[in-house]
């Protein structure tokens, strides 16, 4: 995407940098340029978003009516499992790594990521990991069918043989994520421009720094749990097999010790992106910068002591239940602080509503709704009624779709003119927003009712009283899904043509990335800028 620009801009006057990218496929295979790698991450993420989306639409098509119409239960289970895995590990996480690659060096005034070759490697692992995972669909026995949470013993003793491919796929994704995280930390801690103290860093950089530490802390835990599965399946161990003295609940403890921080990994960078966008279009500095940083850090720390709230019904003792209930409720406090600060930033600003701002405002409102249902889920006695029903499905889709995904959309629209040098079509951007907004709510809001009325999740067919809301949800899903083709069109259109973007792009934008020309030259900040 980054156009080859012959340089000599004020930030870029080192002679040996007078070359552009390599030509042809070699550019993409061997590149160590953070912008190229960032673009590849983003395109990869979009492809995965489409594949995972098709799986979601297969699910919603089957659930359009009661009865089995299109697919059999075994295939349905493979769809729910792969939809979850692909969206989490293939769409959301790589999209944020792509944004990090593009923006972190430009935001802290560094010429590139700290470890450029590792950067190339951490990207190129991903296509292989997902090819491995998706290839299971075409093998005998079918793909993973035990849910993205892959609870043992369904995923060990009772799993299809292809589970081994799934395990190696997860290992590869983990290696990629850990390397990406090390790179982010090394870049932020070592390569900031002179004068850019930690407490002067943009919030997007802060949230990514904290996310990277979360990744390094929990991805090895995930690798550990899948390795235990591997040895249970192939080498006769009994970590999770009760008959051999093992413990199926141990699996859940380990998985959720990874899994809960993982959900913050998917949301914190979105917090960061939105914290860049809202001040820009409010033309007013972010309210409570310091408390925003502390809030993100508190959320990250608390995320390690709440994992068992995913397991309220497994029969943990009363005291454990109470501890995890209180700890979970506590997370509402820093999360609330963030929402209040965003609102305070908008208050008495001078607001305009370009597409990134629309996505950010929807982010704040809809993410808060997801936060509210999260608070309800934290109340252990009520959780017995909500647990593993569509109420939970509604909850986590409200935090992940308008949370993570809308956060990514906001970030892409916000920085796209900087990347490609052209403005996107604002009218189409707004249309993309409104169709996504309506489609998303139509899909997921009725799921609250379904869950409360008693519909369990992960079922291919349902009792008749659930028919109406499922029908609405399916219509919404197809609306949301097809709308994303419009997004693809807008981005391609913007790369090819459009009004030329200025260096600052947005009237209220502040930060180092807006001091370099649009499109950003292939090499930026080879001489570090001075930050006052």
């Amino acid at each position, binding site marked *: 995407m980054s156009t080859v620009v012959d340089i000599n801009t004020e930030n870029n006057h080192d002679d040996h940098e007078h070359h552009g990218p390599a030509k042809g496929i070699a550019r993409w295979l061997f590149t160590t340029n953070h912008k190229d790698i960032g673009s590849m991450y983003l395109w990869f993420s979009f492809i995965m978003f489409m594949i995972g989306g098709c799986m979601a639409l297969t699910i919603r098509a089957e659930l359009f*009516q*009661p*009865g089995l*119409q*299109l*697919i059999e*239960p075994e*295939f349905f*289970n493979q769809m729910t499992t792969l939809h979850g895995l692909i969206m989490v590990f293939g769409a959301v996480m790589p999209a944020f790594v792509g944004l990090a690659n593009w923006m972190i060096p430009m935001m802290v005034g560094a010429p590139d990521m700290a470890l450029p070759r590792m950067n190339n490697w951490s990207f190129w692992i991903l296509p292989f990991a997902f090819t491995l995972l998706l290839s299971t669909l075409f093998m005998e*026995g079918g793909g993973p069918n035990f849910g993205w949470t892959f609870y043992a013993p*369904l995923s060990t003793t*009772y799993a299809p043989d292809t589970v081994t491919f799934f395990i190696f796929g997860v290992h590869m994704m983990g290696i990629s994520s850990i390397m990406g995280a090390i790179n982010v930390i090394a870049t932020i801690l070592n390569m900031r421009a002179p004068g850019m103290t930690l407490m002067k860093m943009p919030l997007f950089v802060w949230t990514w720094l904290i996310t990277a530490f979360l990744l390094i802390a929990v991805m090895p835990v995930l690798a550990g749990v899948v390795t235990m599965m591997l040895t249970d399946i192939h080498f006769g161990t009994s970590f999770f097999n*009760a*008959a051999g003295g093992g*413990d*199926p*609940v141990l699996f859940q403890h380990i998985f959720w010790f990874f899994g809960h921080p993982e959900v913050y990994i998917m949301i914190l960078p979105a917090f960061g992106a939105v914290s860049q966008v809202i001040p820009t279009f*409010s033309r*007013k500095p972010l*309210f*409570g*910068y*310091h408390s925003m940083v502390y809030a993100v850090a508190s959320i990250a720390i608390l995320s390690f002591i709440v994992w068992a709230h995913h397991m309220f*019904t497994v*029969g943990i003792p009363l005291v454990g*239940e*109470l501890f995890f*209930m*209180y700890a979970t*409720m506590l997370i*509402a*406090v820093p999360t609330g602080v963030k929402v*209040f600060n965003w*609102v305070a930033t*908008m*208050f*008495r*600003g*001078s*607001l*305009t509503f370009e597409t990134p701002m629309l996505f950010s405002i929807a982010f704040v409102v809809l993410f*808060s709704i997801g936060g509210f249902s999260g608070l*309800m889920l934290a109340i*252990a*006695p009520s959780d*017995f009624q909500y*647990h*593993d029903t569509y109420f939970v499905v509604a909850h986590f889709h409200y935090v992940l779709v308008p949370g993570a995904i809308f956060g990514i959309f906001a970030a892409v629209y916000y920085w796209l003119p900087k990347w490609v040098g052209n403005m996107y079509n604002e009218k189409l951007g707004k249309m993309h927003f409104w169709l996504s907004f309506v489609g998303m709510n139509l899909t997921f809001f009725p799921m609250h*009712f379904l869950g*409360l*009325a008693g519909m369990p999740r*992960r079922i*291919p*067919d*349902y*009792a*008749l*009283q659930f*028919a*109406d809301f499922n029908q609405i949800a399916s219509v919404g899903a197809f609306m949301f899904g097809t709308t994303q083709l419009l997004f693809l069109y807008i981005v391609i259109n913007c790369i090819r043509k459009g009004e030329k973007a200025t260096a600052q792009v947005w009237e209220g934008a502040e930060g180092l990335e807006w001091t370099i020309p649009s499109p950003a030259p292939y090499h930026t900040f080879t001489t570090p800028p001075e930050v006052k």
Partner: protein
Amino acid sequence: MLSRLVRRAPTLLMPALFAADVSAEYGLNMPVGVTDVSQSVFDLHMQIFWICVAIAVVVFGVMFYSIFKHRKSKGAVAAQFHESTTVEIIWTIIPVIILVLMAWPATTTLIEMYDTSDSDVDIKITGYQWKWRYEYIGQDVDFFSNMSTPKDEIYNRAEKNENYLLEVDNELVIPVNKKVRFLITANDVIHSWWVPDFAVKKDAIPGFINESWTRVNETGIYRGQCTELCGKDHGFMPVVVRVVEQEEYDTWIATKQAEAKAAAALAKLTFTLEEQMERGEKVYATNCAACHQANGSGIPPSFPALKGSAIALGPVDEHIKRVVSGVAGSAMQAYGAQLSEVDLAAVITYERNAWGNDTGDNVSAKDIVDFNNK
């Protein structure tokens, strides 16, 4: 998998005639239920819901006020304030107070839910792929509860009845106004036993026994489902509980005990091949058809075919072993613990003589007993 989708494509083009023309009343909110605990849970749910609504009104109210009043197009000029420690402290403390107020009733309810002492009736519930087993402890009553919705309704070949997917062959029966304790476990993978009207949901985990309890205030039939993904037919293992007066419960227990005795007596009789086939077909439909399919073709490779299979046509003892002891590490369960000798004999006979497997073998209950004694 994909090829199956393609193969089914023609039937997809015919819109499901019977789907969804029976509509049942839809619910918007959690059921209040029929126990004191479910009432407290409902109250907690509504309490936290209204707190969330109140917070939402205030926060989004301020936000939408800004969106309408402070727009650039209306000439709004941005203020430059961006920090206030006092404000930050206030909006940290207020949520903490609200949370403490919420945690209090939640804690009392939870303590009550965990008190399984002094029960009147104890029932062991075991989750199997994909059915429930109910054992009344100390009563000699022990039976399986399978979904009874016909395949024709699921595949839209027949009109769906009112309790579609939420009906079973044998309901769990409990007395009203008595404290009933459930001991919940599983035989294979993790399941979860849930009856929304009782606010009881507990995971059934192999190797663990979880406890829960209920005291139902009203007689009636209450329906729920398995709520932990447990494989292919996770969506097809409902829970149905019939709550009755004590006298009716006593009579029911007596009938069940008598049935168990009668079944034991059957083992001493001999049956003709036709009688065996008739009984075997029913046993097969309830226990085997979900995986091996009604026509014996299975769903290879996970669930092998029985039609023309080496086991069904080979030595009888090997066939009995498969059915009675199961196949370790696969979905094939050990049916010796689940079915009576009479039923085992009938179903094996059926498998050896149906779908063109014409071995002519008539396996008797005594063969099963002999096998077990080996």
